[in-house]
């Protein structure tokens, strides 16, 4: 408007005059929320969805634990049997087994008594399903296994994968903002539409600050409800309140504050309730639905993982080449029928000769394929790096990162697990292969010395604190801009 003198809204700092009113504003606001039945509706809604989501998440975690436990039980039974058999062998008894199944043969034990390489759920695994429905959580790498043969794909209904899970992470990332929006989209506009705002503004106060206090009351209400609902959900599912749980609560509070700040800002533009609702929902759609999809798509466009179809091709070529190097008929046959090898008791040297060549040729293929395989993980890591850089664009992506980090269900965690399993497979081989090549027997005292699987998470670095900073900066900057900034002068509203 022409001819306007500049008038900056700095009353924020002059508030000592009417600072005594804050408490009453808070009380009145709460009283109104209570009498509107808003508070009751909100409380039931929040508790219901959080408890349900936590129950869902926990069901998955329990299944995961159960499957690992039963695998371990089976492994221990097999180990006992192994020791028994080794003892009987020592005492010179015959075993009711085919010769190639005799446990004193390292190739037998290495293949029939694998360890369980398990990826245990973390304390907070229930909060975010993440990638856990795509992958299996234990493998039993045998002596014959390698990078190529080990598969981590879980047998899940793809429809389930498509729809996703109703877990706490979904509730927090998608639903929580909508609850905040429904709660706050008209916090100022309704006062304006009903005419109350004129009455309020005729009083000696800073309207922005007054609105800020109103928003703050609602924020604290919602934050307390969510923290309460989360704590109860976690406690009911027997989650330990380790630092992780506190970290979770902090991130949730910051994320909630962002959506409150956004509602606050949109209200300050002074448009109608309907306009506010549409604007806030468009922002929700953009920040929660469109932006994350776009970021992940940009990542996969810029760092496309080469087609697995091509990997299959390469693998086949290498296998064919390796095959050509071993032209013995016997080998041809034996490779297809390894169980025949030791049955030819008369000629043990040939048999062990076969095993040696078998491992040698396998090793050759693996060596050639490994860089190719590594390329896939490398590309995935590069995607991940880009996503990491772009995650600051949307608080939703940041929260997703935080939650999957806390739950140990991020892509990184599964890559680390895969890497650890490959390492363990190598350790397992280097334990047995010397025995194979030296034609030594496997004995009961070696059972204890068998390599144990260790999940190596050292490559994972925490991004928690950076994430928290950015999550904090978002609402902070929004609010500071509004309280001090000129563009949001309340004057436009009359």
């Amino acid at each position, binding site marked *: 408007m022409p001819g*306007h003198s500049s008038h900056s809204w700095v009353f924020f700092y002059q508030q000592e005059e009417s600072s005594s009113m804050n408490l009453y504003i808070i009380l009145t606001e709460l009283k109104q929320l209570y009498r509107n039945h808003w508070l009751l509706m909100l409380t039931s809604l929040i508790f219901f969805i959080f408890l349900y989501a936590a129950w869902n998440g926990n069901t998955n975690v329990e299944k995961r634990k159960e499957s690992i436990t039963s695998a371990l039980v089976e492994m221990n039974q097999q180990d006992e049997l192994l020791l028994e058999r080794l003892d009987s062998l020592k005492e010179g008894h015959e075993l009711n087994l085919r010769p190639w199944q005799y446990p004193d043969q390292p190739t037998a034990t290495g293949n029939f008594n694998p360890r369980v390489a398990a990826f245990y759920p973390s304390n907070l695994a229930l909060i975010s399903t993440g990638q856990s429905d795509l992958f299996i959580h234990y493998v039993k790498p045998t002596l014959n296994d390698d990078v190529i043969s080990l598969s981590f794909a879980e047998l899940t209904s793809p429809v389930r994968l498509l729809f996703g899970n109703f877990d706490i992470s979904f509730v927090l990332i998608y639903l929580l903002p909508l609850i905040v929006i429904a709660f706050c989209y008209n916090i100022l506009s309704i006062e304006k539409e009903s005419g109350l705002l004129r*009455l309020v503004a005729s009083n000696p106060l800073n309207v922005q600050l007054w609105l800020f206090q109103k928003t703050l009351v609602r924020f604290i209400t919602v934050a307390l409800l969510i923290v309460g609902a989360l704590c109860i959900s976690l406690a009911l599912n027997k989650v330990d309140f380790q630092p992780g749980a506190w970290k979770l609560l902090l991130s949730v509070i910051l994320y909630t504050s962002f959506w409150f700040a956004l509602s606050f800002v949109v209200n300050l533009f002074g448009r109608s309730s309907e306009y506010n609702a549409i604007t806030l929902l468009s922002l929700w759609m953009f920040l929660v639905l469109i932006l994350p999809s776009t970021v992940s798509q940009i990542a996969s466009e810029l760092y496309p993982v080469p087609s697995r179809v091509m990997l299959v091709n390469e693998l086949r070529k290498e296998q064919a080449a390796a095959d050509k190097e071993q032209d013995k008929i016997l080998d041809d046959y034996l490779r297809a029928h390894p169980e025949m090898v030791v049955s030819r008791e008369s000629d043990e040297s040939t048999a062990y000769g076969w095993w040696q060549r078998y491992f040698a040729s396998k090793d050759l293929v693996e060596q050639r394929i490994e860089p190719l395989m590594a390329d896939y993980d490398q590309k995935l890591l590069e995607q991940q790096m880009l996503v990491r850089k772009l995650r600051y664009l949307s608080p939703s992506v940041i929260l997703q990162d935080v939650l999957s980090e806390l739950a140990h269900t991020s892509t990184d965690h599964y890559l680390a697990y895969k890497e650890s399993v490959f390492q363990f497979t190598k350790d397992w081989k280097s334990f047995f292969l010397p025995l194979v090549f030296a034609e030594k027997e496997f004995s009961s005292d070696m059972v204890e010395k068998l390599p144990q699987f260790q999940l190596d998470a050292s490559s994972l670095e925490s991004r928690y604190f950076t994430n928290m900073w950015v999550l904090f900066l978002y609402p902070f900057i929004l609010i500071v801009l509004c309280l001090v900034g000129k563009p949001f002068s309340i*004057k436009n509203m009359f």
Partner: protein
Amino acid sequence: MLKATNLTKYYGKHLALDALNLEVQAGEIFCLLGANGAGKSTTINLFLDFIKPSDGAAFIGGINVEKEPIKTKKLITYIPENLVLYGNLTGVENLQYFLSLAGKKLKSKSLEMFLEEAGLQSGAFYQRVKSYSKGMRQKVGIALALAKESKVLLLDEPTSGLDPKASNEFSELLIKLSELGVTTLMATHDLFRAKETGDRIGIMKSGQLIENMSTGEVGHTDLEKLYLDRMK
């Protein structure tokens, strides 16, 4: 008490208020008459600091409204045409809330006293405002002015839509307040009420104050004739 010097307001290119010069003495009731869009509400909005003047200034108690709005707002009570209150709060709670916005805190007893003084029947004090009639809500507005010890009342067509009895009660309240020294600036369409209640009458047209006189100067019929004359 109220003073406008050369007060001008443009909305874009449209001139809503054209160099208004006006002075209302303490305890006076000044009624602004005029057609819709004549500039009455703009004048009141300028005194409220809801909008910024394009030129000139408005003063309340000698303080520039634009420069120190918080100070001037302490002196005033504003009652719009349709006074809306928080429906889920009672009359007492609404009063208490708006007082707290003005930085004042009073006990329920004294709040009741002010409501009574404003003429609200005591049975309604603790009912939710949802059930109030318009006249009852206006009374809460007056109680607010009393409780705030306002020096100035800014009224924007406060009696429109009130039945004659309620309207009469409202006028009497205004006169009572003026006897207590409260200055009133009231925009209205009700010529009869203006003549009855006001000390002075101003007629506005196209943003200009074209008539400014004492109510003693004219009779009822003359006022109507004058008004219609001026509107031509």
